[in-house]
C-alpha cells in the first residue's frame, strides 16, 4: 500500500536561511525567533494559526508605510519588499479590527509591529492597510511551521510578594503607556527594582520601547510569552502569560511591576481579565487613564460595577487643568500627570499608599 499523500511535504520549498535573513525585513513580532530555523516555505496558508511566521511580499503601500523591525528600529516599506511577519489578530478602535486568517492571494498588515491577517473593520479616519502577497509559512528543517510561541519565555507560576500596579484606561490612546512608563521611571529613580509589562494588546515596539526607555529592570509583553496579539486568545492563556511575565520579572530581581492592559475597560479581553483572580487578588491597585473628565467618570463607574476601584486618574486628561478639576470633583480621585509620576518622591509615596494595608496587616 502506498503511503497517504502529505500535502505539507508536497508544497514545501526549500529556502536559504542566510538569504532570508539578508533579504527580508523581519518584524518586531518575530524578534524572539531564531531566524536560522527557517529553511522551508509551506504553501498551505489556510492552516495558519496565530503566531505562525509568514514570508510575504509587499504589493501595495497603504496605512503602514513603515515596518517595526525585530532590531527595534522602523524601516521604510517599498513595494516589492520581502517581509517576515506573524499571523495574528488585532483589535484597535482607532485603526483596524482583523482576524488571524490568511487569504492565499493577499493579506493585510494589521499592525506595524508585524501582524498579518484579514482586516474586518477600519476606522474611517485611517487609510486602508498595506497589502502583502503571502509566499508561504516559514518552517524548520523538519517541516514544522515556526510559531512565535516556540520561542516564548518558559511558563512559570505567578510570584508571591511582588507589588503589582495595574494601568487601565478608557480607550486606545488615552495615555496608559505614558503613565505606565512614567510611573516605572519614577519608581526606578526612587531606588526600586521595577518591571514594566504590557499584558494585552497587539505586538508593536512603541510601548515596549517606552518601557525600556523608562529604565525598568525587566520589560516584557505578551509577545514574550508567545502571543502576537491577545485579541481572541483564550483568557487562560493570557492569564498564564501574565503570570509568566511577573515570575520572570521577579527572577530578574524586581519587587514592583507596573502592568498595562491595552485598550479600554470595555474591550473584551481587558474586561474579562479585570474579573479574574490574576487582577483582583494580585494587583495592589489600578490607575485609570482617560482622555477627558467624562471618560474618567464612566471608567470609574465601569470599574465600580465589577467591584474594583481606581486609586488615581491619569492620562491625557491630566494635560487639561480644567478637565482634571472636573474629574477630581466628580470622582474624588487625584489626577496624576506625567511630571508627578516621574518624580521619585511622588512615585514612592504612591507605592507606599498601595502597600500600606499589607504592612498594617502584617503588623
Amino acid at each position, binding site marked *: 500500500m502506498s503511503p497517504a499523500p502529505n500535502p505539507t511535504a508536497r508544497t514545501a520549498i526549500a529556502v536559504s536561511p542566510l538569504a532570508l535573513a539578508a533579504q527580508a525585513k523581519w518584524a518586531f513580532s518575530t524578534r524572539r525567533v531564531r531566524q536560522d530555523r527557517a529553511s522551508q516555505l509551506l504553501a498551505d496558508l489556510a492552516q495558519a494559526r496565530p503566531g505562525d511566521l509568514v514570508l510575504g511580499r509587499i504589493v501595495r503601500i497603504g496605512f503602514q508605510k513603515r515596518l517595526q523591525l525585530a532590531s527595534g528600529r522602523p524601516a521604510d516599506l517599498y513595494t516589492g519588499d520581502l517581509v517576515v511577519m506573524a499571523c495574528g489578530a488585532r483589535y484597535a478602535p482607532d485603526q483596524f479590527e482583523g482576524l488571524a486568517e490568511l487569504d492565499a492571494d493577499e493579506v493585510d498588515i494589521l499592525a506595524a509591529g508585524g501582524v498579518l491577517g484579514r482586516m474586518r473593520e477600519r476606522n474611517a479616519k485611517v487609510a486602508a492597510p498595506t497589502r502583502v502577497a503571502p509566499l508561504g509559512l516559514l518552517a524548520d528543517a523538519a517541516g514544522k511551521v515556526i510559531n512565535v510561541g516556540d520561542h516564548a519565555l518558559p511558563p512559570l507560576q505567578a510570584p508571591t510578594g511582588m507589588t503589582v500596579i495595574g494601568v487601565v484606561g478608557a480607550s486606545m490612546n488615552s495615555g496608559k503607556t505614558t503613565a505606565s512608563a512614567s510611573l516605572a521611571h519614577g519608581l526606578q*529613580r526612587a531606588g526600586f527594582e521595577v518591571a514594566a509589562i504590557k499584558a494585552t494588546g497587539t505586538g508593536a515596539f512603541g510601548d515596549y520601547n517606552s518601557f525600556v526607555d523608562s529604565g525598568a529592570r525587566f520589560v516584557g509583553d505578551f509577545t514574550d510569552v508567545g502571543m502576537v496579539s491577545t485579541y481572541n486568545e483564550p483568557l487562560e492563556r493570557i492569564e498564564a502569560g501574565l503570570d509568566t511575565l511577573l515570575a520572570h520579572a521577579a527572577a530578574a530581581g524586581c519587587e514592583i511591576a507596573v502592568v498595562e492592559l491595552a485598550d479600554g475597560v470595555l474591550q473584551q479581553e481587558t474586561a474579562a481579565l479585570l474579573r479574574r483572580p490574576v487582577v483582583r487578588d494580585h494587583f495592589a491597585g489600578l490607575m485609570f487613564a482617560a482622555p477627558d473628565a467624562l471618560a474618567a467618570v464612566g471608567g470609574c463607574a465601569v470599574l465600580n460595577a465589577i467591584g474594583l476601584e481606581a486609586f488615581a486618574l491619569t492620562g491625557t486628561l491630566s494635560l487639561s487643568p480644567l478637565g482634571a478639576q472636573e474629574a477630581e470633583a466628580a470622582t474624588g480621585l487625584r489626577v496624576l500627570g506625567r511630571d508627578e509620576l516621574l518624580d*521619585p518622591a511622588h512615585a514612592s*509615596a504612591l507605592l507606599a499608599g498601595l502597600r*500600606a494595608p499589607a504592612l498594617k496587616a502584617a503588623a
Partner: protein
Amino acid sequence: MKNLPKQSLPPAHDTLHGFHIVWRRAHGRNGLACWLAIPHQRRADTPALVAIHGIQRGAEEMARSFAARAAAEGRVVIAPVFDEAGWTGYQRVVQRRRADLALIALLDELALEGLVGKRPFTLFGFSGGAQFAHRFAMLYPHRIDHLIAAAAGWYTLPDRHSVFPYGLGAESGRQAWGPKFGAALDRFLQLPVSVLVGTLDNLPDETTRSTPELDRRQGRDRLTRARTWTRALTQAARARGLEARFRLHTLADCGHRFIDCVRDGGLVDHVFAPPVPLDACTTALAA
C-alpha cells in the same frame, strides 16, 4: 570648615588607616559636589555612609572624621555639599529646590563609578543635616538601613496635627508634601533610628528656630526636641503594632559643635555602632 585646625584631621591619603579622601566636583546645574572617603579595600556587602552637613557646610570635616572607621569596615563615606549659594533651605528637602533629587542623582553617578551599590545606605546628618536626613528617610525609607540624626534643630513629627514640615499634615495648595512624607510612614517607623544630641545642647541659640507652635509641640532646645521626636516615633510605631527601633543617645558634655561631639562625645562610635536589631527593642528614652 570652621574652627578646626587642619592638623587635627586625617591626611588625604592615610596608608595606615587604609583610605584616601577625594573631592568630587558637582556636575550640572543641580548637581552636588561631595567629599568622599574611599577605603583602599572596599567591601560590597557593607552599606555606604552618607553624611549630611549642617548649615556650617562642614562636609570635608565629616568625611575625614568618619574615614578611618569606615575604612576598617570597607565602607565608603559620601559627604555631599549643599552649597550656601544654591541650596538655602536644603534641610527641608523639597521646599525651594529639590535636595532629594540632587542626592539621588549624586548616588546614581557614584553607582556608575562603582562606589555605591544598590543596597540601602546609612544616612547620618548633623544639625541642619539631621533635619535633611530624617525627612529624606521619611520619603525614601526603603533606601536607608540606619538613620542617625544628630543635633537636629527641629523635626517633622510623625503625625498630622501640624502641617509639613512640622508634621505630616497637608499644607495648603495643590503641592501638599505632608501626605507624601507620611505615605511611607509605616516603613519609616520600621527603620532603626539613632538620635544623638549633646547634653549641653539644651539652650536655644541664634540658629535655633523658634515659633510658638514649634516650641509648644517640640520644646525650645535641641535636647528637648530630640527627646520629643524619639518619643513621638516610639508612640507612632507602637500605635501601629510595630517594634520601635529608635534610640536616643545623649553625648555627655557636648554642645552643638560637630567636632566636639566627635572628640568628646563618642559620636563616631555611635555612628558605627550596629543599629537596634528588630528583636531587641529596648528603646532608651531619656527621662
